[in-house]
Structure formats: C-alpha cells, structure tokens
C-alpha cells in the first residue's frame, strides 16, 4: 500500500527534527563546557591499563595502529593515551601499522604522544632509542608470521629509513616471541588476525582497542583470556585517559579527546533512548486506538 503524500512529508520533517536534536545534544555540551571528568572505567579497560602499568621499565611493547582516518575519532585517542602511558612508565613502544592508508595517521599519533609526553614527563624522547615507528610493510598475516620468526628481517628499516638491526629501541627483540605485550588498535579484522596468527602462536599477551561496532565480537576472546584487556570505542579511550590521569596528580592532561566526548555521547544516548521509547509509545497508542495495523 502506498504511503500517503502528507504522511511522507510529515516523516521527512520528523527526520530533520531528529537530526537537529542529535546535533544539539552533541554540540551543546562542548559549547557549554560541561564535561564529565570522572566515571567508573570498565574492568577490561582497567585490565589493559594495569598490564601496561606493571611492566618493568625498558620493556618493549608492540603497538599496531591498524586503522585509517575513517576511524580516527574513536581510535586516535586510544593510541595517544596508550603511548603516553608507555612513556610515563619508561617503556619502549614499537609502533607499526598494517594499513598503507594509515601510515601518516600512525606517525601523527606517535608524534602527538611524544610531544605531549616530553612536556608532561620532562624528558627528551628520541626516535630509535625511546620509541620506534616502523611504518608499514606489505604482507598481511605473512608479515605477522615473518615477525614471529625475525622481526628485524620483516622491518629492515623503520619509517624514517634508519636500519633496525642495531636500533637501541629493538635491542633484545629478535621476534614476536621476545615481546611480553602486543596491543592492536584497529577498526578491522586485524584484531582477530593478531590473536590467531600472533598471540596464540607466539605466546605474547595481547590487548586490543576496537571501534564500538566491533566491541561485542570481542567479549568471547576476553572470557577465554586470549585478549587480556579491551578498549571499546570512544568510551574505551575515555576510560584509558581517565586511568592515566589518576596517576598524574599535579599535571592532569584534561584535553583527552575521549573524556571530552563523554558528555556529548551520554547526552546523545539519552536522546536516542527517549526517541526509541517515544516512537514505541506512539506506535502502541495508535495500535490500541485502531489507527495503526500490525
């Protein structure tokens, strides 16, 4: 049955009203500077944080930033927060990406974290010594398997063209088997490929940061212990930023994009819930009064 023209027009107006309401719910908290600066982090974000926090100084941590600008909003804050945490704990992050379109984004994340950490922790951080950015190499899972045998053979130079063979940041790391922790931040199936071809095969502990869409798919791996901790969407980034801030009394970085986005996200969620309830109430009312079939 064709929908009457008047009904279509009414639906189009309702659609635009919803767009305006969602925009307002997101923009107003930023303009009014209403920021939710304290909340309870999820237990699996805390697990990942504690794992990083309890590593010994100079431990090498591989961080794979497997995403491109399409997922920047959710995943960039995670990358920056984890890298800053590594610098705070004097760990040596070794960063790479499996996305050719994410090479410059990953470099930006490393540079942003380095710049912030140099200010916050008062020490000069040098590429190749305090951290390494390896960039991208082709191969997909072959690359992971190759890294499991010979990491420096898989990445003979870093992103900046420096040979990795004698690089201080990679001393003692011949392969993935020499790493205690690998963290993948991704918007794709890479999160599972790292489990299957990396963690389960070479025995390192594995944490993940994923987009909210992928979050529910990761819970079975959390339960089985194949993933030791998880950051789930912008909320996951905010959790990690908050946990990091709690260790930095006196030099709080309140500019974390995850935390700043939480009020807007909560407001928009409340709005969506209200709209779902209102639409259902209207439907039930119309059906009860005989104006709607179904």
């Amino acid at each position, binding site marked *: 049955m064709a929908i009457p023209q008047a009904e279509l027009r009414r639906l189009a107006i309702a659609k*635009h009203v919803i*767009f305006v309401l*969602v*925009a307002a719910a*997101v*923009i107003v908290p*930023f*303009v009014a*500077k209403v920021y939710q600066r304290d909340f309870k982090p999820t237990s699996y974000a805390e697990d990942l944080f504690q794992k990083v926090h309890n590593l010994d100084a100079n431990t090498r941590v591989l961080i794979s930033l497997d995403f491109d600008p399409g997922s*920047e*909003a*959710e995943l960039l804050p995670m990358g920056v927060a984890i890298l800053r945490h590594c610098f705070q704990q004097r760990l040596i992050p070794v960063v790479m990406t499996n996305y*050719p*379109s994410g*090479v*410059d984004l990953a470099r930006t994340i490393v540079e942003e974290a380095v710049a912030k950490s140099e200010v916050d922790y008062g020490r000069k951080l040098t590429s190749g010594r305090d951290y390494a950015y390896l*960039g*991208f*190499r*082709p191969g997909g*899972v072959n690359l992971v*398997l190759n890294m499991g045998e010979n990491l420096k053979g898989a990445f003979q130079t870093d992103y900046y063209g420096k040979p990795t063979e004698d690089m201080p940041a990679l001393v003692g790391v011949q392969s993935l088997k020499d790493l205690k922790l690998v963290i993948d931040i991704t918007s794709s199936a890479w999160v599972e490929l790292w*489990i*299957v*071809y990396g963690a*389960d*095969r070479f025995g390192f502990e594995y944490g993940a940061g994923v*987009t*909210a*869409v*992928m*979050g*529910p798919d990761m819970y*079975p791996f959390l*339960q*089985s*212990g*194949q993933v030791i901790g998880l950051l*789930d*969407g*912008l*909320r996951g980034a905010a959790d990690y930023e908050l946990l990091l801030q709690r260790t930095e009394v006196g030099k709080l970085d*309140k*500019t974390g*994009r995850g935390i*700043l*986005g939480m009020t*807007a*996200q909560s407001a*928009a*969620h409340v709005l*969506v819930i209200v709209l779902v309830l209102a639409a259902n109430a209207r439907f039930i009312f119309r059906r009860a009064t005989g104006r709607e079939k179904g």
Partner: protein
Amino acid sequence: MPEPDDNASSVRRAVEIGVFTVLLAVFLGVSYYCQDPFGLTGEALAHSIGVIVAAGLTLVMYSFLYRDNPLFKIAENLYVGVALGYGAVMTWRMALREEVYKPIFMAPTTEALGEALVWRTVPILLGILLTMRISRKYSWLSRYSYCLLVGWGAGVGISVYTHSYVLQQLNAAIAPLQDAVTQGTWEPLSGAWFLGAFFPMLGSLAVLVGTVAVLFYFFFSVEHGTAGRTVSKVGIWFLMISFGASFGNTVMARLSLLIGRVQFLLFQWIQMDQ
C-alpha cells in the same frame, strides 16, 4: 502558463540558493576570523588552509542530511578519489618501491642484485600473474597465484583457526563449570559460591543454551514440533538480544564519529577553548 508545482519548485530553489549564499558567507567569515590565513606564512599557512578545507568538506558532507545536492556529490567523489590516490601512492612508496624497485633497480652491488633476483623473481611473477585478471584472454594465468594463495591460506589457517576459535573457546566455556565442581567452590548458597562459581557457571550455561538454541533455529532438515518450536523461540530471543547489543554499539560508534567531527570543528576550526 507555468504549473503551480513549477512555481513552488522555483521558489524553493531560489530560497535554497539564498540560504547557501548566506551560509557560504558565514563559513568564509568564520574561517577568516578564526584561522586568519592571510596573517600566516609557511607551514602555519598550509595548516590553516588544510583546516579550512577540512571544515568546509565536513560541513558539505553533513549537507546531505538536508537532501542530496551537487556539493555533496563533489565532496563524495573527491573523498573516494583522494582515498584511492593516497592509497596508491602509499602502496608504491611503502611496498613496491621498497620491495621491488629499490632491491632490483637500485641494488648497491652485483651480489645484492643477484640475491634480490633469487628471492624476489618468483613472488614478483606471481604478483604480475594476479593482474592478468583484467585480460579476458590471459585471465587463466592468475589462477596459479590464486591457487597458491588459497592453498597457503587453508593450510596455515585451518590449524590455527581451529585452535583459536574452537579449542580455546570450548575451554573457556567449560572451565567455569569444571571449576565449580573440581576446585572446592561447590558450596551452594554461600556468598563465595555465588560470586566465584555461580555467575560464571550461569554465563557458561547461557552460552551453551544460546548456541544450541540458535543453531536449532537455523536447522531446517527436520520439522519443528512443539518442543522444537520452543527451542527455536529461545534461539530467536538470543538472536534479538545479540542484535540489540550490536545495534546499541553501532549507534555509539556512529555518534563517536559525529563527536569527532564536532570536536574538530569547534576546537580546531573555530578554535574554541576546551
């Protein structure tokens, strides 16, 4: 004489052009006031122009929420083109140049060239064969590369996927039940039993019941009797709960993308204080 619909559409178009002109003026004014591109030089100027272009394109993309329009189409095609171009350049820079061009055409010594040819000739040939898909006459040649890819994928993948997806998951599902019985926590109605054994066990049972019920829902080889329909209904409930969780997380993800763009517009384009 023009039809009333034509008149309404002309008026609407005139209003839209007027509104667009005002919005463009506002955008340029805000960009000039907040970014001040004429007062900058060098890298700062490039950054400022980049922010203005990104802000403009962001707003143009959101104009689709009003309705489809030529500016949105331009931005959409620009996005696809830039993404493809960027991907091609990065693939050349990070993959082909490093793995093919440099080792063979810029080899520092004859020995290095010999080594490169020994190790890289076959992979390069297999790669070239893949591109034969574009030729109707020679597309069969690509099958050699695909055979290798599929064979390798199956050979390596089956064992590791069985381990990671089946054995590890089975172990995780059974462990709470096993712990409840074998590790001395089987003291019903005690607080420790509820926290330490009951809830994990309940979770494992839910996974077990859910898996069987959902599989049964999709099992059409036998007619579903009264009991079968009940199990199927349980399966539907599990599916709906799962879809609900996925939908909720998808809404959260989409809102995060909006929040990301709003943060960019407010903090980088308008340069509002945080």
